[in-house]
């Protein structure tokens, strides 16, 4: 596989604010790649640096092997779907979509046929002569997508393109976007702060926090094998248990839980003797009798979620654990106030250092 984008040691400062701190990243050709992180972590800044709207303080960005940092935005074979679409209000849908093609000086019959094709693809064929202001949010979003796809860029950047849509529409567009990425073979860099969006759509995800790259991996790696507490906590729900690592031998760590029980853990992101953190997903904890359990506590709260019941257990040492019980197994649903034992799925529990 070819590398589409190489981000090498990129740093971006705004005065004292460090928006990006030594970010290095390689994105493969034909990949649906997602930048995920909370608001303000530098996702937009990284995307704008690739598009050419920001000057890097340090580092290099290569597109298919060639450095592009010295090229102005209009010379980069990269197109962007802007967060608020930035459609040209005085141009019709067709002229918006054809804008890039016109600037590339394509013959007008070719522009017309390509615009028609791409509007067909995003199901806006009958809206070609409308102004953007006459379209709904979802339609505007598709015009923005069509406009960015029309010049057939080698790389498409999408900055939270779904954030302005309502939930139902957002779910439809997710599928559509994946389909379009698959059909066109264009590399997508997709920015979102929504972890569910990232997990369902991406080939790979880069998790960012405060300008620092935290982890890069497939959705499954990110969810099941987080590298640190931030990633474990940001992606999905998790229980973080403070443990003491007493021994590390051959990729197997012995951890002492707060209640004094000791478990052996071999799923870890590096470990050393001392303080550690065990991340256990709520669906990887089961409830059972107190005797023989690793942790015990009192059921403090049940939350009904439809398919699942969310059980909050207050531990005897003051901490709490979240547990998910499937709604199909009514015998497993405890009574609030009852004392109960917690059983961890050790293979799925991940030991984290920081």
């Amino acid at each position, binding site marked *: 596989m070819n590398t589409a984008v190489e981000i090498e040691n990129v740093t971006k400062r705004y005065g004292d604010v460090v928006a990006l701190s030594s970010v290095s990243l390689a994105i493969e050709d034909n990949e649906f790649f997602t930048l995920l992180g909370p608001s303000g972590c530098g996702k937009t800044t990284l995307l704008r640096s690739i*598009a050419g709207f920001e000057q890097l303080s340090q580092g290099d960005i290569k597109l298919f092997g060639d450095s592009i940092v010295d090229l102005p935005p209009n010379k980069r074979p990269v197109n962007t779907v802007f967060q*608020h679409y930035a459609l040209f209000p005085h141009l019709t849908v067709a002229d918006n979509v054809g804008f890039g093609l016109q600037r590339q000086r394509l013959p007008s019959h070719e522009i017309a046929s390509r615009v028609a094709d791409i509007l067909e693809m995003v199901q806006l064929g009958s809206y070609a002569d409308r102004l953007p202001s006459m379209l709904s949010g979802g339609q505007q979003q598709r015009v923005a997508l069509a406009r960015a796809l029309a010049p057939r860029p080698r790389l498409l950047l999408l900055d939270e393109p779904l954030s302005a849509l309502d939930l139902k529409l957002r779910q439809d567009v997710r599928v559509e976007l994946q389909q379009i990425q698959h059909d066109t073979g264009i590399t997508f860099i997709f920015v979102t702060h929504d972890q569910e969006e990232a997990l369902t759509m991406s080939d790979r995800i880069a998790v960012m926090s405060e300008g620092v790259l935290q982890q890069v991996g497939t959705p499954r790696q990110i969810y099941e094998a987080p590298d640190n507490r931030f990633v474990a906590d940001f992606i999905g729900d998790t229980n973080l248990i403070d443990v003491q690592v007493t021994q590390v031998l051959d990729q197997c760590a012995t951890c002492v839980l707060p209640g004094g029980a000791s478990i052996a853990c071999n799923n870890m992101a590096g470990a050393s003797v001392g303080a550690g953190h065990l991340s256990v997903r709520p669906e990887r904890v089961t409830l059972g009798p107190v005797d023989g359990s690793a942790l015990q506590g009192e059921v403090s709260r049940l939350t009904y979620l439809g398919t699942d019941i969310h059980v909050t257990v207050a531990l005897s040492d003051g901490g709490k654990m979240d547990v998910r019980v499937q709604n199909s197994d009514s015998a497993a649903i405890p009574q609030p106030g009852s004392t109960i034992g917690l059983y961890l799925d050790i293979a799925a529990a991940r030991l984290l250092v920081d």
Partner: protein
Amino acid sequence: MAQIGSSARSSVKGGTFAGLGPLLMLPSWVVIGFFLVLPVILMLVYSFLTKEFRGGVIWEFSVNAYDQFFFNRGLFGDEAPTIEWTYINIFWRSIWQAGLATVLCLFIGFPTAWFIATRSGHSKSMWLFLITIPYWVNLLIRTISLKFLIRDTGPMNTWLMSWGIIDQPIHIINSNLAVQLGLFYSYLPFMVLPIYASVERYDFSLSEAAADLYSTRMETLRQIIIPVVKPGIIAGCILVFVPSLGAFLAPDLLGGSKTFMIGSLIEEQFKGNAGNWPFGAAVSMILLSLVLIALMFYARSQSSARKATRAAD
């Protein structure tokens, strides 16, 4: 449901304001009637009266004023009428002068407005304030100061010569250029402020989107920025062009006899003993009609453009 809701709302509104409506409109009707409709009617009536020597009118219907504007009947008024070019030429020259002043205002005003609109909050209001400061001074005084600045022995020429940039004074005073400079100086804020308001609302991500789609800076300016801020540009042009057309201070003080403009022509008719009130009123009416026709054409082109895009709906 929606209908019931809206009718209920409007009945509440009606109940509150039904009697007050016309009363609330009264002040604006008084202002428009007193300061707009009445003077224009007065002007229209006067333009069809007979002139009295030493100013004033005789209350007797006459089309002489209009006849004098358009036709030449010889020195004693007994020859076959030919077209009178004198006043038409003055009109033409005035339109030309006002047009050039407007273009000058646009070329200086647009970048100025752009600069101000792209400053951050505090310095923005400071720049706006600075732009309007000269307008606290009377127009007559400002025009005379400009005359001082640009005359042959004025500071501009003295400094340019003392710095060795020129060795002869640049002769500007009493030329068309001086009049245009005067008009430019008089009406620049009328160009800057509406464009500023448009640029202020301009979404700069549109420029980024254009650059992202391979536009050079010039293409972005021509294809995106100018069309989007066009309402402000047109408002500015109208606000500069219309008063420039009727201006008389700048042409009187800065121009020579060859730069005579409509404003001066009208002013002359109402000043001193040489005046001709009906003729002055007629020239004003012709000027007013021209401006109204031009604005009507503009409004029609706008609404038909809007209709065209709505037809596509």
